[in-house]
């Protein structure tokens, strides 16, 4: 830093004091940050589904419709649950459970895909057994945005809290996330 630059900074500190920081803080309420000014291009949106996600809300669809993007619906059954069932039940019962889960998942995927297509979205669906957190983070790398139901991987709770898995996913992904 040259003499003139350090002189200006010394004088600035003495004249403006802490006033500039407090003014800047007030302004931040209205102004967009640099990263907010940049509108990311969204071509594909990942929407994870599971037993606890019954639907995509209309409000979420309104937001998603702002982008001309393909929606990838992914129904995930937790590997750990399957493992536990295998240990606790006989193989017949496990297969029956898996079949029922699969049937439920297919129905859900079909219903939601139909709803999305009705609203003009193009969709892709897939269904697999895996980890509801890690696999979503991995898949998010090949998408531009992720939309998560607040009850994803949570349970039947009726309160308004956001599932811990959803929060963890949001912390780990590097793409914009929408929680509905």
């Amino acid at each position, binding site marked *: 830093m040259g003499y003139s*630059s350090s002189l200006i900074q010394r004088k*600035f*500190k003495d004249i*403006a*004091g802490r*006033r*500039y920081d407090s003014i800047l803080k007030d302004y931040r309420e209205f102004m*967009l940050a640099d990263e907010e000014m940049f509108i990311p291009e969204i071509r594909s949106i990942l929407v994870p589904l599971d037993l606890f996600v019954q639907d995509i809300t209309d409000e979420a669809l309104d937001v998603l419709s702002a982008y001309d993007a393909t929606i990838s619906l992914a129904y995930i059954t937790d590997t750990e649950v399957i493992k536990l069932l295998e240990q606790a039940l006989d193989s017949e019962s496990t297969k029956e459970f898996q079949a029922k889960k699969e049937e439920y998942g297919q129905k859900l995927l079909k219903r939601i895909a139909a709803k999305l297509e009705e609203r003009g979205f193009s969709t892709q669906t897939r269904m697999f057994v895996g980890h509801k957190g890690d696999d979503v983070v991995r898949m998010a790398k090949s998408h531009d945005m992720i939309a998560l139901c607040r009850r994803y991987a949570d349970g039947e709770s009726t309160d308004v809290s956001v599932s811990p898995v959803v929060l963890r996913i949001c912390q780990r992904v590097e793409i914009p996330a929408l929680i509905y």
Partner: protein
Amino acid sequence: MEMMALIAVAVFLFTYALIIDERIHRSVAAMLGAAIVVFIGVVPWEALLRHVDFGTIFLLLGMMIIVNTARGSGLFEYIAIRTAKLAKGSPIRVLILFAIVTAIVSAFLDNVTTVLLLTPMLLYVARVMNLNPIPFLVTEIFASNIGGAATLIGDPPNIMIASSAGLTFNEFIIHLAPIMVIDMVILLLMMYAIYGRSMKVNAEERQEMVRTLNNLDERAAITDRSLFNKSVAVIALVVSLFFIHDRIGEILNFVLPFVDPAMGLEPAEVALIGAAILLFWSRQSPEEIFEKIEWPALFFFGGLFIIVGALVETGIISSIAAVMIENVGSTGEAMFIVTWFAAIASAIVDNIPLTAAMIPLIHDLGATMDVYPLWWALSLGACLGGNGTAIGASANVVVIGIAEREGIDITFVDFLKVGMLVLFVTVAVGFGMLWLKFAM
């Protein structure tokens, strides 16, 4: 030269050097200098009270209370957002509108507060337009100094001159405001000529800017609607009172016959009355507001008055005045010397300490010549001289300091090139107008 006089000169020069360099806070430097001259008896207690210009200090204090109370309402953010929206995506319009708003706000509030509040919005607009912000920032600096020069309360040198010489608000409006209006027009033409070509945006960029700025909600900036309304009302009242402060008795006498028609209010009294009304009406916590007063600035002024008082007490100022009287043949010549000396020295020293030193000198010149035109010459030189360098006035330091913090480099030399051009043109025009008025 007597020992006391030598000490007074040494303290003066040492303190001013510290103020220029600012390695020590300017208020501390001024207080230290004042402490030395008081300690060794150059300025005794009775003289100290005489030399400290309480008119200046109380006027600054009153205005600081009003501005800090009003700030809490979001009034200034509202003004900044409205200005940005009015530009409708045109960079030239942004430059002109922000310059005009800065000049008007600076004319009634202090320049530092004005630029502190408007610069973040100006930077934001420049970023949205994806344009180099330097033309907008330097224009804002010049506009602030020119606008501040237009009124008694706009710039500290004017406050000091008015308080010491007993000049009224309306005298500033009559003698300096027209000069500053013309200087503003010239400034805008100069800025257009220098930067106009670099301010082109295409239709798509303009639309993008309008869209982004329209997303800013100026009403959301108003954090306290009631305080906002009260602040606007009190600022309007205070400005109105400034216009009639010297003949308030005449006006009050119509309604309240017991009021002496000859009564007048000092500008400092107007500011403190306004501050009291706003504090009472708004019910803001006085502790919070008083905490926000820029006490270091007030102590800086106090210290300067004492250090310059030491030069007066030891006869240094009258000796310089005597030399000037011997060598200056006419009022016009004196006006020329005062204007250009103040302008060039302000660019180097900072116009506040320069004005503090010049005021007693002009008082001393009053023994043999009419000094009334010299006050305007001093005001013109000191206020517009601040445009010359990056450290010439507080507004320059604040805007360039903010820019540097935001990663925008306005170098000393770059500013000097434009600043000196603006200084010489605006001071020359102003001096010409004063000359026609007082020396022809």
